């Protein structure tokens, strides 16, 4: 409960701070004539944004598809005792800086979008697995006992009791994971993954603020959009009885 609130509070702060920053940047950019130069790059922005979104969608989607079943599996009776071990391994993995993860991924898979997607997937996986694990573990044992006592099968208990009651924590994990993911995608450019990082890093290298902003502003907007979509899903798809937001 406490860490969910912390995540919520953090992302709100982050979002508001970002908005102020964007506004200040935008005003300054326009005044200094940088923004008009950005519009010259419009075609690049559209292309790279699409690439950027693809990177987020594929790596994030894979992480969700792998992370939730993995988290669920680690709470099942047979695998329960491995839960903490796997979590430890993933935690150690999470302490490796994201740039290093991408570099390692490149040394393994070469240059291009494959290593980028793999690196992003690894970075995104941990919060999803750990929150799925924590969410299901936090379902009170007496709910499981009541469900068993009424004659629910293990599958019914998972789908009708454990997952719905862990949903909020699982969503919080996905939200954190996607925030990390979106924030890391610009680095994918460094290993040839493309995306808006291309404009940002090129802008920095060429000392062209217009180009840099052409990459940074869509990146920031995308981060806000993803977080907003996640918060709306969290609000509307979790039943009212177990949704602290409603």
């Amino acid at each position, binding site marked *: 409960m406490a860490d969910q609130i912390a995540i919520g509070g953090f992302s709100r702060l982050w979002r508001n701070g970002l908005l102020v920053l964007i506004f200040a940047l935008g005003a300054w950019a326009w005044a200094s004539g940088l923004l008009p130069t950005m519009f010259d790059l419009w075609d690049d922005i559209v292309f790279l944004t699409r690439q950027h979104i693809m990177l987020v969608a594929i790596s994030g989607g894979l992480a969700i598809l792998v992370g939730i079943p993995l988290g669920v599996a680690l709470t099942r009776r047979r695998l329960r005792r491995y839960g903490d071990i796997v979590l430890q391994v993933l935690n150690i993995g999470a302490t490796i800086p994201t740039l290093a993860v991408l570099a390692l991924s490149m040394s393994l898979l070469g240059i291009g979008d494959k290593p980028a997607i793999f690196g992003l997937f690894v970075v995104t996986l941990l919060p999803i697995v750990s929150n799925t694990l924590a969410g299901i573990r936090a379902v009170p044992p007496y709910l499981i006992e009541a469900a068993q006592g009424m004659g629910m099968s293990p599958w019914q208990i998972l789908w009708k009791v454990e997952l719905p*009651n862990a949903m909020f924590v699982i969503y919080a994990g996905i939200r954190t994971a996607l925030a990390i993911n979106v924030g890391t995608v610009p680095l994918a450019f460094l290993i040839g993954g493309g995306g808006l990082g291309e404009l940002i890093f090129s802008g920095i290298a060429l000392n062209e603020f217009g180009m840099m902003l052409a990459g940074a502003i869509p990146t920031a907007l995308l981060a806000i959009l993803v977080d907003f979509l996640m918060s709306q899903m969290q609000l509307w798809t979790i039943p009212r*009885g177990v949704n602290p937001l409603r």
Partner: protein
Amino acid sequence: MIRLEDVTKVFPGAAQPAVDHVTMEVPAGEICVLLGPSGCGKTTTMKMVNRLIEPSSGKIYIDDKDTNDYDPVQLRRTLGYVIQQIGLFPNKTIEDNICIVPDILGWDRSKSRGRAAELLEMVALDPKIFLKRYPKELSGGQQQRIGVLRAIAADPPVLLMDEPFGAIDPINRAIIQDEFLKMQATMKKTIMFVSHDIDEAVKMADRIAIFSEGRLVQYDTPDNILAHPKNRFVSDFVGSDRTLKRLQLLKVTDAMMHDPPSVRAEDTLATAAALMEENGHTSIIMVGPAGRVRGYVDLKTAKSTKGKVGENHETLPTTINVTEDLRTAVSTMFRHDVAWLACVDNDRIFKGYVTLRGITHLLGEAHRDG
């Protein structure tokens, strides 16, 4: 009917069996309370009935069918189950919570939802208000009522209840217990009910099974357990005030002197005195034309005064309804500092009287029998 034959449970790594060769039978339609201190094996015994815990040895039959012949999941769908923590699913509405077992069994939706509304009305909760609410929006007492309704939704013949009213405050607990007993009077389920509270057991049970260290020490009616505890453990457990507890099991009618003499307003005091002396009483009740209690005359007044009863009677401080239990009767006597009470029915018609001496005698009888 639930029958346990020589059932034993030894948990892996435990030196002592949790349940040690228990044989007992709960007759159909009765409430059997499994009673004992924590760790005595009562909950384990109950959980072996729906196979949440598998017995190490022994057989359990429900309506003469061996529970081992069923798939445990299928078996549990035919047995109602209520736990102390209630365990309503917070992600489901009250309606969906009540309909869990009907839904698993694949009942038609309109039938199960209709049943949910019907059940809510039975416990005086308005279906219009409560069906669509979530558990967190209900008070503890309301939640526990729903917990019971959920267990009986698919109308199982057998109910297993694990300290179902343990987490509720004493006032609400008494109300819910009464409500439950009223429901049980019509639904006649065979119930195994775990409790550690002797007062609850005395109130709810047709039979009490007292457990100690995994063994069934005594299995008898509440009155017999209180009147004839089998050994030191039972008598300590039921408490040194066990005889007082028996008072709530006995009704005023059990100790009442039936068809007592009475006088009317137009009778003379001499008649009253003669009647009292004939019966060895020191006072007599005056009744009205329909037989309702109006007052009383005592022997001293009747002997020392001349005239009609109607002009010399005194009013009674109180009366007691024949349907009350003796605990209430004794309490009423103490409150009004009297040693006897006139008993009336719901129409205040005079039915008899109870005396402190009569009650003492009744309680003593059981002890002399033993």
